[in-house]
């Protein structure tokens, strides 16, 4: 176990390093510079600014210097979007907004999706199962922006007399409803499909027959014996999904104008704000990689039968 944990952690660190290097080279390959604006600065100004922020050095040297700063916990300052404000500061003010919406979204997705999957598996072959299957397939076929914009249109006055919720995000509890609904819909449908498949697998096992023969109640069989074994494939999906949802749905934040991390990431690419791109990418990537790592390690806890020495497959 110890060897396995060490190997996994090393892999995670290596992945993060590769992501950092990849992002750095990609970012520098984008033509354009953070200094170009409507004011059209002179070449001398651009050179001076480049020299000041160290952008005149070769890319590989820049990367080395950046990594050095990073190891000291310094994410540098924004070049353009909020000139000279530390990137870490920007991230720490924006992440809580994204994270709170993401947490609510993934929360309702789990609370609704997993029981629905159990229900579909339990009622397999009946109309309940068919109905749930249609809804869930529809749910994973609708891109996030379709769900978000349809919600936006129908609940904010698009239909005569229906004007329940504010269209713009302003931090009030009411304005949280739509983004969370939209963000959680896809994971909910996906989870319910996954749970159904996994439950069908485990319902057909012998130990369920034994439990039934012992005279256990249905609820106990489903939730204690079948669901626990069905959780492994669900967990595989959930790890990266939690990370991604917490880091902000890019689309949902754009549609509802939420000042979250996802939307800011896209804006920083469009603005060529190098330190900000690096900072947000590293933050998001590290978050996702750590979540993956945790899921990998959790496998062992959930299912002791998994043999980690064989690579955990």
């Amino acid at each position, binding site marked *: 176990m110890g060897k396995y944990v060490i190997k996994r952690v090393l*892999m*995670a660190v*290596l*992945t993060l390093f*590769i*992501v950092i290097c*990849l*992002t750095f080279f*990609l*970012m520098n*390959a*984008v*033509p*354009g510079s953070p200094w170009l604006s409507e004011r059209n600065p002179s070449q001398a100004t651009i050179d001076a600014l480049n020299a000041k922020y160290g952008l005149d050095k070769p890319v590989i040297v820049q990367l080395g210097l950046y990594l050095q700063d990073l190891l000291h916990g310094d994410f540098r300052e924004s070049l353009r979007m909020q000139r000279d404000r530390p990137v870490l500061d920007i991230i720490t003010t924006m992440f809580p907004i994204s994270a709170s919406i993401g947490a609510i979204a993934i929360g309702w997705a789990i609370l609704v999706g997993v029981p629905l999957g159990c229900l579909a598996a339990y009622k397999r072959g009946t109309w309940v199962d068919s109905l749930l299957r249609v809804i869930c*397939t*529809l749910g*994973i*076929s*609708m*891109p*996030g*922006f*379709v769900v978000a*914009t*349809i919600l*936006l*249109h129908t609940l904010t*006055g*698009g239909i005569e007399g229906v004007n329940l919720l504010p269209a713009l995000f302003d931090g009030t509890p009411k304005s949280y409803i739509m983004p969370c609904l939209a963000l959680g819909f896809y994971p909910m449908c996906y989870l319910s499909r996954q749970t159904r*498949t996994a439950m*069908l*697998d485990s319902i057909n096992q012998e130990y369920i027959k034994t439990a039934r023969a012992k005279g256990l109640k249905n609820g106990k069989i489903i939730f204690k014996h079948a669901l626990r074994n069905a959780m492994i494939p669900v967990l595989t999906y959930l790890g990266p999904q939690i990370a*991604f949802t917490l880091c902000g749905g*890019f*689309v949902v934040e*754009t*549609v509802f104008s939420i000042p979250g991390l996802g939307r800011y*990431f*896209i804006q920083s*690419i*469009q603005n060529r704000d190098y330190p900000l*791109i690096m900072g947000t*990418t590293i933050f*998001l*990537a590290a978050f*996702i*990689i750590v979540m*993956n790592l945790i899921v990998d390690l959790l496998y062992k806890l959930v299912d002791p039968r998994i043999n980690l020495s064989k*690579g955990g497959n």
Partner: protein
Amino acid sequence: MAEKKMKRAIGSLQPDVEEILHWNDLPADAFEPASESEKENFIQDRKSVSYWKDAWRRLRRNKVAMVAMVIVILLALFAFVGPMLVPYSYDQQIRGANNLHPWHYTWEDKQRISAYMEEQNGLANLTPDEAVEQARAEAEAEGREFTRIDEAKVRAAAVAGAQGGGDTVTEEEAAEALGIKTKPFGYSDDELQRMANGESVFPHVFGTDTHGRDILARTMMGARVSMIVGICCALIVLVIGALYGSISGYCGGKVDAVMQRIVEIIYTIPEVLIILLLGTVLRPVLSNFQNSGDGPLQSLVTVLGPNLISIFIAFGMLYWVTMSRIIRGQILQLKQQEYVTAARALGAKGGRIIKRHLLPNCIGQIVTTTFLQIPSAIFTESFLSFLGMGVTAPMTSLGSMCSDALGGLSTYPYRLFIPAIILSVMILCLNLFGDGLRDALDPRLKK
């Protein structure tokens, strides 16, 4: 030994073996040759069923998958044949046809409406004295008595109208008052006039956008872009994933270990972040390449557009991982089979074994995985286009049409709903058909 006769012990109760062995001896005339018709019947009784025929038979019984297939075919016709039938192109800006709704009033109705509006709104613009004069004249013409009470009413209404200002009659109210109903499809004023003159004009079935571009033509183009992206990405993923997975699975040992570590690293890379970056990086690079000369490669870039190619490359770099894992798993199982050992004993090289023996035997998995890659590629492309990172103007895609429609959502909701519904239906049907295909090609997986 075999010749040795079994000697029966005297008084033994054992049956006589020799006798029993001859029980089944048939007389010489027990057989007769089969007649011609019997021979034919025997051959026709059971046709050999090939793998694909068997799969097709199973697929045909799956109603949901068949309906989905029909819808996918219809959408493909819509996307690839449709633009030939519509006389407008996706980037053609039709003069005087900006912001048309997908409904219209006929030319005569329109004139009646404008006359009515002029009359109503004209009344509202009169000063109180003029309004009273007009009302008195009307009353006299109709032979009624124009009392002081009437006069006060008209004066009050005119004053209120002048102060309110916004009390003018809109087009919809006028149409309602006249009892005129809208007819489907949009036409610009110019086109209505030409129709009134007896010309036949192709309607703007879904209306037009702010630049006067036909939404039907744009939707068709967007659907075409989505389908091309889906199919190309699936093929790229298939080629890279099949090559990588089969080599990794067949070679095994150290090669497999190294290749699988690479796969694991790519697996954990947050792909959306990298795709967003890659898209922005590759676009200008490819545009430069496109303008650098006119070789066959450059013209290929021109045909497909630099944006689409950058999406393909992003997909080719990151999305083959799942495919390679599935194929590796299959090959790890298959390479233990006897026929592979036999092929190796006959001196077949690794490449030949993979190509002739291993890959054809996991064709079911390969086809299903490739097919299910199509909707996921369409999904990702629409997501990128929606964020403004996919195709750029004047080229269009269903995702970018949706994001364009966000601006006028309350006035022109159908501009969002039309591409959104087509996109969702397309992905839904591809998913359903892919599921059906999986059940048909690999019946063991069916739950």
